[in-house]
């Protein structure tokens, strides 16, 4: 099947039964996307499909042939971090880091839709992403900071 991941069309030898998560991680070796619960409850597998946050664990890759998929590898670069990534570092908004790729992409989808979110907007938008380290207050602060940074430098 042909998938467009982070702007690059890729031909992938995958079966119809494979989830988008399995194809991203195991066929394409893009291991930034994490498998947590694998049943749409924890958010670690969050990617953007045509700009909208979705759980890749509940999405069949075969259904994504006409879509543009963004994974955490497509959000920023090591030498040019996305404002969200910069804010997560500055606010220390992670401990073990396992949920972080999903949190970042869920937050990116929020800011794209709501450039000036309230703290409650952030809490609700990230409620589909669990953090077992419990760093929720710092997540909210980081997303608020990133939104401000992104408004300042369009």
């Amino acid at each position: 099947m042909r998938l467009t991941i982070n702007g690059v069309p890729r031909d992938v030898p995958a079966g119809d039964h494979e989830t988008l998560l399995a194809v991203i991680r195991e066929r394409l070796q893009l291991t930034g996307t994490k498998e947590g619960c694998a049943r749409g409850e924890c958010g670690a597998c969050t990617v953007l499909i045509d700009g909208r946050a979705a759980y890749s664990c509940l999405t069949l890759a075969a259904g994504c042939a006409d879509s543009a998929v963004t994974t955490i590898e497509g959000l920023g670069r090591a030498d040019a971090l996305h404002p969200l990534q910069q804010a997560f570092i500055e606010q220390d908004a992670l401990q073990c880091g396992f949920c972080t790729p999903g949190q970042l992409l869920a937050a990116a989808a929020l800011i794209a839709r709501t450039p000036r979110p309230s703290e409650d907007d952030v809490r609700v938008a990230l409620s589909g992403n669990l953090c077992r380290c419990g760093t929720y207050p710092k997540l909210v602060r980081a997303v608020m900071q990133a939104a401000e940074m992104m408004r300042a430098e369009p």
Partner: protein
Amino acid sequence: MERFQYTRARTIPEAIGIGAQATTAQQGAPVRFLAGGTTLVDLMKLNVEHPTRLVDINHLALNAIEHMPDGGLRIGALVRNAALAHDATVMKDYRVLSEALLSGASAQLRNVATTGGNLLQRTRCMYFRNTAMACNKREPGSGCSAIAGDNRSLAILGTSPQCIATNPSDMNVALAALDATVQVQGSKGERTIPFRDFHLLPGDTPHRETVLEPGDLVTHVTLAAPRAGATSRYLKLRDRASYEFALASAAVIVEVSGGRFGNVSIAMGGIGTKPWRMTAAEQALAGAPVDEATIVRAAKLALADAKPQSENGFKVELAQRCLAHALRLATGMAAS
């Protein structure tokens, strides 16, 4: 997940033709239509559902929200929950539906889940979802582990000795209050099903959840024109403030004139085996003064037939309070 044949349907007749080859459209159906997949793929991973054929309907032209000549709204089965909740007309004229949709699931799920799929959302009863447990809904005749088990979140209305599973959908509660209709295309043509007739009580056949037959494809949900002057609200009570299923929820549409209730529509969720319309409470409110005593009396009447399970007796009072507060919000007696 077991292997299956994947087909991308190009036309509605093609999808219906493949679906009609199955022996059932209910639990265990060998052919399933794939829309958002948020319930279906999950249940396939759990081996609760094991279709041998998936028909991907995501590319059918069923993703529009159309204004009808009579002032109503026709919602395509593939309109995503997030798109429906944020639609300007839905937010203005059908607030109860927008609020219900936004109270459900997470942003990731609402972006993907569809109107038709939400209509068919399966119960979250943990015994249904666990193939090691007895469940008449999953395996007819195997028994019900929930009745003597952990049933705190399960139903107190519409239960049977075979099943006490709750319908989990928030959207369905709003659609029940709105008297929506469901448009279906099947191998025998098109038909329109009133919302109250769409879902079935468990009775002795809890594996049959809707009136759908093999090949039937939900194409649209239609709402009548909004009632002039009516106010509608959805209130959901749950264990945490977001991303959790309802313990009790209430969708209310009220008309008030001269300090008295006019027509009132009430449906409740989290407590019934199907979306539950509260007709006795509606009748008690019509014409009655808008005051605390009237509201509390109607809320008690609504739950008069409730039959709690071993661990969810609290739901009776919770649901009464939920309905009473939804009515206070809709009448302006309380501020949100």
